[in-house]
């Protein structure tokens, strides 16, 4: 088999056309690397800007002494700028390295362990939600009648604020989930909430993805007299991947939100959500710790988003479509 280089002087016009295309693709790959570097740099710059803005606003508020006067905007529409409401950036970040009273670990390590706990809840819920969501998508894609009848309820289900009834779910779980071979634990109830938030984008986008193959691709499979499962595995599922990943990015984030909020309202100990609630109670003695713990949740959210994005790059490669939910 001749290598690409030795074929350079081919007279096949198609191959020549391909060469040009290949060069463009190479440039595109190089651009992609540049883009990642640039985005990382912008993110850092953005964080710096945000910190600068925060500090600047605080300094401005302090200078005009917002506590003493009733200013129209500063300290009323926008927050007050004293150290209790807006602890200095340096103290928020400094908090990460400190050891809170009654603890034997530095704060960032505590947050890290709790983030792992929350991540476990979210991940368990995410995986179950993924399976349920795909099952619904498959069923709806298979039976049009079902799609017409059920899809509105799948959408309506998301307007039910299940997060807010997290305590009910925990109680419910303790009482009723003894059908499972394992012992039901409270954190699993939090996972149920993550599942509830995950299945929806997966079901809706999964359905769109399963329906996305073009008519000629479906006809092709039909012309091979391909079976339902052959068409599913070889055409519908691969075609749905770009749509599915758009949903997974949303779902991953939502599962973290579900886990954090679920912990708070369900009173489950050990995770980041509970940490935030505790720091909110102790606000007056350590506002910087509350800010630091909220930052921890932000990092966790962005982390799972980046993980899904990375998996998408690996699985789908460059053929990602822009699809919005």
């Amino acid at each position: 088999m001749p290598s690409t280089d030795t074929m350079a002087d081919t007279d096949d016009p198609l191959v020549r056309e391909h060469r040009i295309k290949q060069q463009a693709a190479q440039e595109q790959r190089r651009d992609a690397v540049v883009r990642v570097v640039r985005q990382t740099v912008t993110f850092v710059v953005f964080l710096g800007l945000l910190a600068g803005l925060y500090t600047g606003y605080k300094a401005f508020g302090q200078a005009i002494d917002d506590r003493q006067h009733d200013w129209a905007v500063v300290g009323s529409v926008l927050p007050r700028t004293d150290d209790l409401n807006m602890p200095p950036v340096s103290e928020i970040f400094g908090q990460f390295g400190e050891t809170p009273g009654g603890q034997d670990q530095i704060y960032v390590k505590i947050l890290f362990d709790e983030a792992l706990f929350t991540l476990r809840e979210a991940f368990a819920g995410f995986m179950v939600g993924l399976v349920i969501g795909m099952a619904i998508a498959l069923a709806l894609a298979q039976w049009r009648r079902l799609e017409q009848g059920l899809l509105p309820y799948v959408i309506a289900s998301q307007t039910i604020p299940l997060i807010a009834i997290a305590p009910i779910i925990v109680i419910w779980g303790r009482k009723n989930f003894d059908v499972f071979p394992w012992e039901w634990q409270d954190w699993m109830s939090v996972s149920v909430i993550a599942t509830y938030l995950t299945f929806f984008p997966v079901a809706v986008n999964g359905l769109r993805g399963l329906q996305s193959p073009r008519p000629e691709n479906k006809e092709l499979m039909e012309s091979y007299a391909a079976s339902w499962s052959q068409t599913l595995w070889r055409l519908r599922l691969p075609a749905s991947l770009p749509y599915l990943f758009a949903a997974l990015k949303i779902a991953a984030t939502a599962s973290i939100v579900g886990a954090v909020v679920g912990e708070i309202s369900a009173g489950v100990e050990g995770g980041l959500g509970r940490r935030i609630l505790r720091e909110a109670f102790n606000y007056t003695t350590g506002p910087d710790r509350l800010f630091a713990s909220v930052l921890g949740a932000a990092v966790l959210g962005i982390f799972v988003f980046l993980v899904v994005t990375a998996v998408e790059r690996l699985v789908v490669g460059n053929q990602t479509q822009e699809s919005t939910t």
Partner: protein
Amino acid sequence: MSEVPSMDEAVSSGQGAPPLVIDIRGATKVFNPGKSNQVEALDEIDLSVGPGEFITLIGPSGCGKSTLLRLVASLIPPSTGTVQVNAKPAEQARLDRDYGMAFQTAGLFDWRTVTKNIELPLELMGWSRGARRRRAAEMLELVKLSEFANHHPSELSGGMQQRVAIARALSFSPSLLLMDEPFGALDEMTREHMQDELLRIWKETETTVVFVTHSIPEAVYLSTQVVVMSPRPGGIASVIDVDLGDRNASTRDDPAFFTKVTEVRTALRKVEE
């Protein structure tokens, strides 16, 4: 090409029986029958195609060329009449995988490499991995794309993608190749190049081809028979035999070629009136 044992039954259209690959009798097609948007797409079609023929369906928009092709492919059933492929109902021919199809867009699966795309029908038919690999390599050689075996379709030009689609359609040595305006989206130079490629492959594989096109020169250049179709409802206006011998670079400048082009054009004009 012919050393694939499992395909032998499917290819054997001529075991002494009348060697008709396609036999359509009194086929009609009505879409949405009984509804307000009822469309009579095809009316009383009779058509027979022998083995090794290259048939082109040509006609104005809405004459039902693609519908007729899909009737043969058994992708849609006829409203009345019969469609037989290899002396059995078209549905059975589809289940027996008697034909390969190519569409206007190459319709390759983006997530599969070129090789894996060609292997797709073989996978569905349960070929072993080794046999698939061997056959895909043969097909790639046939369409002169061996060096692109592991590329993804998005890395190929439009003409190359169409070649892969043809290789895919032919990979399991079907006795019949159905093509729906496969070169419609290509530029003129690439198109002529692909026509020569297709004729070469047709001769090498001795497949029967049904080819839908809008282009009169393309129809004349490729076919042994041009079927001119009339619109509303779709029907066969005339069948023009083309006997230009082996095509080569000078065929397109041959007076006989132009005579045939004019003949087809005249037939089409009549249809439009």
